[in-house]
């Protein structure tokens, strides 16, 4: 049974997305290519390729390896720089009726702040601060793995950020709730999780790692159980909304993340096997709502019925 009046709108840090389907940064470019496969305004939001202050060439190829129900990537933040984004890429996305999330990654606190400032003056709707890319280090420790650093960087960047600030967390940590709470105290308006798990694949015949970078980030269905667990843990630790991601291939996967506590979901690796994945997933989510006669999608967020012990 279809309920035509159902609401798919979700609120991420004060910005209303028309539906909870977001593209995962780095898998969707700046929307141009997939925009040839479907109307981008079907999306709740487009989160663009990770941006850095100055252009970055990225890592040498091969940059991708296939694993069981997953992929490893080591793109290394190839991008034209944040200013080129605002000038050359953003206008194109703005033609579509969807929200724009700028994903930023810096080498230093100053870089993050500077980028936030540049984006603040643009028509971008939200900023997603990636503190979880294995390539971004300070003093040998990635920003995203130390709670105090996460608090500090969030607190500082927030000062420069006119848009709501999403902090994107790394799963490569001992206690994700600590990091999540630090971001929340620092002023984050929302959280994204998870980024990729660090992994490696070796070709046993050449004895070389398949990735020229030796290691890379694991994404896809393989990591979904870890991602759902982290979303669930973080949802009970913070009050700000969560964008959940990690291996979402179907509407059922999206619902699973929302039950665990995500207000919106991002689709990454799925785009590679199905260029229409985002719209298919959206339609599958709608069918689920119809089937259970749910009229407001927010009614399922965090509604997992955990077993009491």
């Amino acid at each position: 049974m279809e309920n035509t009046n159902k609401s798919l709108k979700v609120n991420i840090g004060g910005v209303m997305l028309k539906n909870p389907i977001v593209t995962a940064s780095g898998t969707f470019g700046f929307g141009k290519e997939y925009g040839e496969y479907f109307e981008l305004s079907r999306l709740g939001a487009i989160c663009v390729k990770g941006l850095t202050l100055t252009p970055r060439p990225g890592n040498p190829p091969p940059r991708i390896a296939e694993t069981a129900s997953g992929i490893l990537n080591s793109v290394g933040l190839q991008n034209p720089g944040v200013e080129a984004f605002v000038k050359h890429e953003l206008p194109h996305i703005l033609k579509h009726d969807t929200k724009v999330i700028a994903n930023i990654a810096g080498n230093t606190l100053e870089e993050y702040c500077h980028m936030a400032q540049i984006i603040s003056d643009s028509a971008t709707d939200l900023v997603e601060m990636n503190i979880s890319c294995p390539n971004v280090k300070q003093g040998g420790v990635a920003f995203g793995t130390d709670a105090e650093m996460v608090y500090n960087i969030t607190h500082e960047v927030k000062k420069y950020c006119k848009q709501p600030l999403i902090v994107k967390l790394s799963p490569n940590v001992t206690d994700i709730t600590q990091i999540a709470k630090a971001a929340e105290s620092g002023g984050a308006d929302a959280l994204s999780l998870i980024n990729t798990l660090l992994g490696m694949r070796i070709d046993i015949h050449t004895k070389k790692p398949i990735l020229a970078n030796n290691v890379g980030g694991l994404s896809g269905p393989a990591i979904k159980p870890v991602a759902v667990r982290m979303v669930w843990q973080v949802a009970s630790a913070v009050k700000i909304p969560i964008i959940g991601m990690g291996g979402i291939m179907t509407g059922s996967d999206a619902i699973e993340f929302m039950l665990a506590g995500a207000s919106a979901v991002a689709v990454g690796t799925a785009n590679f096997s199905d260029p229409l994945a985002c719209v298919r997933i959206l339609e599958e989510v709608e069918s689920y709502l119809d089937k259970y006669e749910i009229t407001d999608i927010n009614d399922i967020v965090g509604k997992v019925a955990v077993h009491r012990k």
Partner: protein
Amino acid sequence: MYKQTYLCEIVEKKQLAPEIIDMTIKSKELAADALPGQFLNIRCGDGCSTILRRPISICDVDPAADTLRFIFQVKGSGTQFLEAKQCGDTLDIMGPLGSPFHLLEKVDGDVILLGGGIGVFPLFLLAKSIYEKGVKPTAYLGFRSADLVVMEAEFKQYTKDVKVSTDDGSYGMHGYATAYLINHIKNKKVGLVYACGPEPMLRQVQSICHENKVRCQLSLEQRMGCGIGACLVCACKIKKQEGFAYQHVCKDGPVFWSEDVVFGGE
């Protein structure tokens, strides 16, 4: 009109040589658009346990019959999946993708097609297209050994001459097909070279053409994610004022002008 993925029926399947499969699929849309040098991105599994599509070059197209042909070597899980498919089964295909070989209006000298191994296949549609423009190219095809030599007779139809070499000398000339190119350049004026094959071969072709100031197009390979230019994984180095910039095999290529290509370190 938006692009889409096509569910295409397999209408013909042949084994040409050990682990070399020749497949023809039906698709009005793909057959209408396919150009030489472009490729298909084929789902080889359920898209969940085997996520990535496999890029396979278009080998031939018959727009009248709405069919497309590709030939592949069975290597890992993806091509094994393809091999297991039968006539009547369908494949989920994106395409045609990539920028094709550039056909020049006028070439001053002979046109050479140089293929190595699986690099031979995309040159076939190219040979046909050049032939249809009224020019007969020469094809030099390299294989590992006699049992892997395929398509020689087919190439004959659209070329002035076909010569085959094998790495082990079990058929044709003993050695690499590039030796034919060196020889050809020594004896005659070569206007344009098209090459596709393993990287060591392409490197050699590049330096031969560079030394002899012959224009050349190379078709590159790289591991891919999206296949359409969005994920940036299929990087290749392209010359820039100083140094290089990464471009992408799936969208900017697979075909590049030889003088632009910078081969990697290892």
